[in-house]
């Protein structure tokens, strides 16, 4: 990965495009209604054919819903949760980290103590409390994930800002007469974006899994609507007898997380002018 | 004349390009031989090759290194470990980074000596005193962070020399030090070479350091030796345009202030830009078609003074 556009990166981008495409078009391309239960066809294995209902390519779940339709429909919820919660925490965490690293002093003390506190509260507890107060909804889910995850970015942004802020080109920007917002946005942010990108891409997969945990507690995507996480958590009771309920959403999750991580590495190098035209 | 170290036709390649291309020189016991050049000239890689400590991506594609007559280029790693520190040692630019921060300096010198502990302590103490460390009884139990940079370099020299190696490779040993400390260390190296008969290969970019302690000097440019000879001859009658320009480009205490310094146009070429001919061709005032096509051989111009230039006579 040196930031060049290779067939490998084309494949990754293509695969991600398919994911997004499927997620957006889910309502039109699902073979079955993902919510319709056929109790006679519970826990059927992949490639089941029913003369009345047709093919169930990935089998059915514990209440007889078509697994393929649920996985396709769940892609939307999972990808949205991942993308939105990462955006919220990346944005807020980076802003706090930049400010703490640049102004240091009491701002840094306050911000970094809050970071320590938030990181030491069990995320599930924080999530339960937030949802208990605000009630379960998609917006609140994003809020919860953002609230619990921003300190990861703040830590990285803070450490990187401290380091970059000592470099002579930052002194030179001060000498030029640039004020803090310009120095932070034009000089520091682009030079700390690489490590933040790496954190964001690893967090993306974690967020999708975290949503699954919350769904399991009844705090995430509300049933009967599917997300990959909720499908897997429903399926874990049947791992021995109906492996497909966990394996297929798991494969989808694995694929998207891997692609996003690889894309993140590539983007980090791509955004670095030093990596090109060497 | 006996020879402590003889290097012939050394070639080191990174990714198919010979970044060190046919280096040859020898050093006699007690002699200080300098390899001088700018960054990217291959002097540090050459130094690492002498101890067979090359980075992984560097391959030796040719040449021999004879240490006291024994070819060490083909030795297995196990034999090399017996040679390093015993018969050939090295000191580095950043002495504080080269010492283990968690171990007392005396223990580090002792480790290099390979002696048992009781006899060793006295030997280490004497060695520390010999490299000019005042109060060795106290210093022997101190940690590197308690010593200054100059003192750490003395400790490095002590541990490099305690086993009486035939050759000491000194890679920019004073670059990280202040001038007054540099003067002390150079005096020390000069004295140790004379007293112990150690052959010193001094790697440096500083012509002043060369003038101070080297008996002979090889001027390197882009992986090749441009000129090699006795220091006095090379400085007073340079036979390669690179050496001549380099010497003219250095401000001196005797120059006319604010006068224009001689300039070597452009900058050192990257290995990817090396052509078929002389590697100085892009910056040389004498360059012609032949220089572009064919690398000049290293030929003797005066007694013991060699230059690799098609136009040596124009410098006379």
């Amino acid at each position, binding site marked *: 990965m040196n930031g060049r556009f290779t067939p490998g990166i084309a494949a990754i981008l293509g695969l991600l495009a398919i994911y997004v495409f499927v997620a957006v078009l889910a309502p039109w391309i699902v073979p079955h209604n993902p919510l319709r239960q056929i109790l006679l066809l519970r826990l059927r294995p992949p490639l089941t054919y029913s003369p009345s209902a047709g093919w169930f390519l990935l089998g059915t779940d514990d209440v007889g819903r078509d697994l393929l339709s649920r996985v396709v429909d769940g892609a939307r919820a999972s990808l949205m949760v991942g993308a939105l919660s990462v955006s919220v925490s990346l944005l807020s965490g980076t802003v706090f980290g930049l400010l703490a690293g640049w102004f240091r002093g009491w701002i840094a003390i306050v911000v970094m103590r809050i970071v320590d506190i938030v990181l030491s509260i069990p995320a599930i507890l924080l999530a339960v409390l937030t949802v208990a107060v605000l009630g379960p909804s998609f917006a609140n889910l994003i809020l919860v994930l953002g609230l619990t995850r921003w300190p990861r970015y703040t830590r990285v942004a803070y450490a990187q800002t401290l380091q970059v802020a000592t470099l002579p080109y930052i*002194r030179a920007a001060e*000498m030029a007469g640039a004020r803090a917002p310009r120095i932070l946005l034009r000089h520091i942010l682009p030079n700390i974006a690489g490590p933040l990108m790496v954190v964001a891409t690893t967090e993306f997969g974690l967020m999708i899994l975290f949503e699954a945990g919350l769904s399991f507690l009844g705090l995430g995507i509300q049933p009967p609507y599917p997300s990959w996480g909720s499908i897997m958590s429903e399926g874990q009771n049947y791992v021995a007898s109906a492996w497909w309920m966990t394996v297929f959403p798991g494969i989808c999750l694995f694929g998207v997380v891997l692609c996003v991580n690889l894309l993140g590495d590539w983007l980090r190098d791509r955004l670095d002018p030093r990596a090109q035209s060497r | 004349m006996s020879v402590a170290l003889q290097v012939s036709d050394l070639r080191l390649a990174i990714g198919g390009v010979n970044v060190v291309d046919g280096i040859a020189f020898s050093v006699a016991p007690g002699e200080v031989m300098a390899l001088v050049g700018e960054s990217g000239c291959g002097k540090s890689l050459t130094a690492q090759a002498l101890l067979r400590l090359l980075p992984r991506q560097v391959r030796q594609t040719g040449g021999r290194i004879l240490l006291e007559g024994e070819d060490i280029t083909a030795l297995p790693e196990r034999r090399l470990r017996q040679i390093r520190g015993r018969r050939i040692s090295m000191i580095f630019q950043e002495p504080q980074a080269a010492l283990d921060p968690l171990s007392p300096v005396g223990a580090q010198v002792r480790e290099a000596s390979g002696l048992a502990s009781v006899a060793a302590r006295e030997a280490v103490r004497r060695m520390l005193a010999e490299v000019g460390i005042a109060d060795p009884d106290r210093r022997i139990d101190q940690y590197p962070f308690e010593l200054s940079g100059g003192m750490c370099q003395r400790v490095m020299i002590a541990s490099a020399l305690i086993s009486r190696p035939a050759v000491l490779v000194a890679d920019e040993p004073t670059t990280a030090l202040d001038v007054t400390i540099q003067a002390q260390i150079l005096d020390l190296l000069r004295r140790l070479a004379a007293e112990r008969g150690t052959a010193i290969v001094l790697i440096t970019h500083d012509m002043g350091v060369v003038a101070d302690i080297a008996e002979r000097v090889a001027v390197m440019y882009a992986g090749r030796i441009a000129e090699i000879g006795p220091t006095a001859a090379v400085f007073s009658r340079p036979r390669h345009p690179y050496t001549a320009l380099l010497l003219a480009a250095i401000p001196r205490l005797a120059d006319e202030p604010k006068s224009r310094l001689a300039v070597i146009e452009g900058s050192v070429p990257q290995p990817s830009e090396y052509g078929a001919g002389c590697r100085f061709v892009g910056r040389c005032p004498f360059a012609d078609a032949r220089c572009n096509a064919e690398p000049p051989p290293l030929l003797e111009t005066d007694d013991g003074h060699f230059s690799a230039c098609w136009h040596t006579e124009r410098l006379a």
Partner: protein
Amino acid sequence: MNPVLAVDGLVVHFPARHGPPVRAVDGVSFTVAERETLGLVGESGCGKSTVSNAIVGLVQPTGGEVRVAGMPVRGADRRTLREIRAKAQIVFQDPATSLNPRMTVGAAIGEPLLVRGLARGRELRERVAALLTEVGLRPEHASRYPHQFSGGQRQRIVIARALALRPALLLCDEPVSALDVSVRAQILNLLVELQQSHAMACLFVSHDLAVVRHVCDRVAVMYLGHLMELAPRDALYTTPRHPYTRALLAAVPEPDPALQRAKPRVPLKGEIPSPAAPPQGCVFHTRCPMAIAHCREEVPAWRHLGETLVACHRAEETPAP
């Protein structure tokens, strides 16, 4: 005529986490007149870079006074500081880290003009092009990134950026120390030319006495936060009055074997003491070959001796080199 730069009793102390503060600069006074180049030499840790940073407010002076074109730096508000930095620009040592790797060269050079609202759009591009030409580069280099240039070219870019605001004072903090010998001469020639063509005053901070002699009109020698000697160039190099200056001159290896080996050696014993615990009396007495009991007790006054300013009890006795 007012000097472009007046430094009077400058003190900069850095608080240490443990123990006493580091006395980086401890009472330094000098002036730089219009069109004059003053050299500030000394070994690492002597505080010379801190002096240049304090002049433009990049570090806060603890005491004393610094005036740039008459404006006091100490306690300056943000607007005054901005004005001071329009008058005094700085060139740092390492061109590799002096330029933002994610910013084009043109954006870097134009930044002082852009953020101060002095030029934009087409006019900005033209002024950047003119600056690039002035430092020996080509206008089309503006769209490239710093990593596409060699060390010497990058230092040219840094110099162009420093010239953008037409400063009255240029601070050069070891501007050629990170460069290869063959490139060093190019940059020194450029700096001398620009200083003359722009009629700038210049403070040239360096550890290299030969380089300082080449570019400076007067030279100040610093040791452990204090000035030891300040003299016109020729006086300092031919009749150094301070034993430290003499030792420094003797320690610089001349690139000429005959001269270098004939040179008298003035070996300095010992090491530079810590600036957190400087010696009592004259700070140099622990290494001085001429130190007497008096030197350990009383700080020598900063006094005139001919055209030289020197801080040494025994300056009159300094033998000719």
